[in-house]
Structure formats: structure tokens, C-alpha cells
């Protein structure tokens, strides 16, 4: 499946994923601790410089993923213009832009496999409490395997609906889609058992 990792290879792609994630966590906590719009403006400038260090194409891609903030930025603008607390509004907007850009930067420069490795490392201690990393691995693989197939079936169902109706399909296809997901779950459970199940029998020698 496509991931959000940027195909534009930057220097940050080579930084270990764990380091990037730790730095992101610290920086995000820091951003929420800052209140002064000037400090936040400096922080945002630093983040922008970081993103630009990946090149223009990379930065353009990063900017596109900020679009989801537009309605919120508009909202903040209206709200704080009305209440007159402009400094607070500016701080909130700058913080949002910086935090989101930074988080996206880490996602864009970290390969899925590296992310998974960090996640596995973080979860390792929980094995002692009965967490089956094998079951976890399998469920991730299954979800990734079946997402495109469910989306495709959803598309086919909407098409089948449209072929026989003047109105657009909507929630009506959710029920057959859920039924298909349930059927798939039953079939794959059997396919798993056919090849030894989640916890395979021990083979020694």
C-alpha cells in the first residue's frame, strides 16, 4: 500500500526513526509550553527552514498536507478578531502550523518499515504481559491486505447501485460492505488455521 513517505529522498530520511520520533515528541511538548507569539513565530520559522532543507518539491508536498488546517485557521481568525485577543489567536495559529508541519515532516521522511521497527521496539516490554507480537504483526498485515480490497468492493457496490438507480448510493452500501468484511474475516480465519493458526504448533527439528 502507498504510504505517506515522501519519494523525494532528503537527508532526514537517513536519520534513525527512533531519534526523529523522540525529537518530535519533545518538540511538540515544547510547542505547547510556549505562549508568546514571538517565540512561536521563531519556532515556526525553524520548522519552515527544516522543511525547506528537503528541497522545494518536498516543501511543496509538505505545504499541501497543511490544507486541513485552513478551516481552523479561518475559525481562529474570526474568533479572535471578534473577541479582540489577537495575540492569543496568533499564538494558537502559529503553534498549530508548527506542530503539524513537524509531525508531517517526520512521517514524510520515515519509511514504513522503520516506523514498524520502532513500534515493535516500543511494544516489546508488553510481551511480558501477554501481548502477542505475532498476533499484532498478523493483524497489521491483514488490515493492509484487505483495505484496498474492501475499498474496491465498496466502489463496485456503489457502481452496482448506480447501474440500477438514478440516485447516488450512500449508506445503503455500508451494510453489504460490512457483510463482505465479516465473510472475509471468516474465510481468512480458516485460511490461517489451514496453515497453522496464529500460534503455530511448535516444530522442533
Amino acid at each position: 500500500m502507498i504510504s505517506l513517505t515522501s519519494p523525494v529522498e532528503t537527508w532526514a530520511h537517513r536519520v534513525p526513526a527512533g531519534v526523529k520520533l523522540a525529537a518530535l515528541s519533545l518538540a511538540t511538548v515544547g510547542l505547547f509550553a510556549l505562549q508568546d507569539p514571538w517565540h512561536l513565530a521563531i519556532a515556526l520559522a525553524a520548522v519552515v527552514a527544516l522543511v525547506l532543507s528537503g528541497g522545494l518539491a518536498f516543501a511543496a508536498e509538505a505545504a499541501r498536507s497543511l490544507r486541513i488546517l485552513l478551516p481552523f485557521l479561518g475559525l481562529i481568525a474570526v474568533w479572535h478578531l471578534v473577541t479582540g485577543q489577537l495575540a492569543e489567536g496568533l499564538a494558537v495559529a502559529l503553534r498549530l502550523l508548527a506542530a503539524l508541519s513537524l509531525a508531517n515532516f517526520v512521517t514524510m521522511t520515515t519509511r514504513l518499515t522503520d516506523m514498524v521497527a520502532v513500534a515493535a521496539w516500543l511494544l516489546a516490554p508488553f510481551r511480558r504481559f501477554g501481548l502477542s507480537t505475532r498476533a499484532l504483526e498478523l493483524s497489521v498485515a491483514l488490515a493492509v491486505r484487505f483495505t484496498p480490497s474492501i475499498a474496491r468492493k465498496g466502489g463496485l457496490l456503489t457502481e452496482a447501485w448506480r447501474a440500477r438507480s438514478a440516485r447516488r448510493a450512500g449508506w445503503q452500501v455500508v451494510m453489504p460492505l460490512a457483510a463482505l468484511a465479516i465473510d472475509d474475516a471468516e474465510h481468512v480465519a480458516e485460511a490461517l488455521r489451514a496453515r497453522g493458526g496464529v500460534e503455530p504448533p511448535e516444530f522442533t527439528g
Partner: protein
Amino acid sequence: MERNLTHIALFAALIAGLGLIPKFTLAFGVPITAQTLGVMLAGTVLGAKRGALACLLFIALVALGLPLLAGGRGGLGVFASPTVGFLVGWPFAAFVTGLIVERWRGNLALVSAIASGVGGILVLYVFGVLGMSVTLGKTLPEAALLVTAFIPGDVIKAVLAGLITSALARSRPASVLSRG
């Protein structure tokens, strides 16, 4: 064991799939995402524990960098955006929804709709409003005010979740694990 695991994974995939179907709109042509409907169904169909785990799995995949949220969004940025609470709250929403359906053995359609309302709206909005309040620097009542516009759409989804769950139970009686 295998069935639990595959149901959890397939519902995570279902929630993802509901966000990926092109030009998919719920009732009244409002382009609201069907993904929270998937969260409600995870609760009503799978029950509390499996439903919550399906949502948790989905969130983990988003965090790892897969663009599974409606509109192809994903990655760590989602967790820094104002709507973070509405995502992080999913497992809790599905858990409460599932718990109600498991415990209250009334008419499935009605119970599922009410359970989806309690879990998928009440519980979820608590998380959502908290997230908004922190990220947007607003007080809780102010943040709550900002999201009231979305409640009618979610009420429709809860009703649909009830109808879909009972339709599933009719077509595949064994499939509604929460009542199994």
C-alpha cells in the same frame, strides 16, 4: 483466536475502506465521512473488546504513516491537528458502544442505535472537545460550541448503525459477535 484476530483486522480494514470509497456521501448529500459509522459498527457488531481493538489497530496504522483517514490523510500530523480527539477517542467510543450492546439484550436495532449514540457521539465528543480545547487554546464550553454543528450528522449515523446492525443480524445471525 483466529476468528477474533481476523474480525479485528477486517473491521480496521472496513473503517479504512469506508474512507477510501471515491465520492461516497452519507445521507442528504452531506460529504461527511462514513468512517465513524464504521467505528460504531465495530462496537455494535464485534462487541466492546474486539471493537476497541479494531479501532486501535486502525489508529496504529494511521500513526505509522498510512493514509487511511478520509481524504487520504494519515501520519503523525493527524495527532497534532485540532481533530486529534475525534480519532484518539475511537477505541473508547467503540468500547462503550459494544459494552451497551453486549449487556442490554433488547431490540437489536434500537439498542445498537442508542449504544452508537452514547459511544459514538457522547463518549467520542468528550475526547474530541478535549482535543480541540487543547490544540485551539479554547475553554471546554467554547470548544464544545465549535463542534455542535456536527452532531445532527452523527445522530443520523447512529440510527444507520442500528439499522445496519440489525440487517446484518438478519442476514448472518452468527456474524454479530457482540450478541454471540
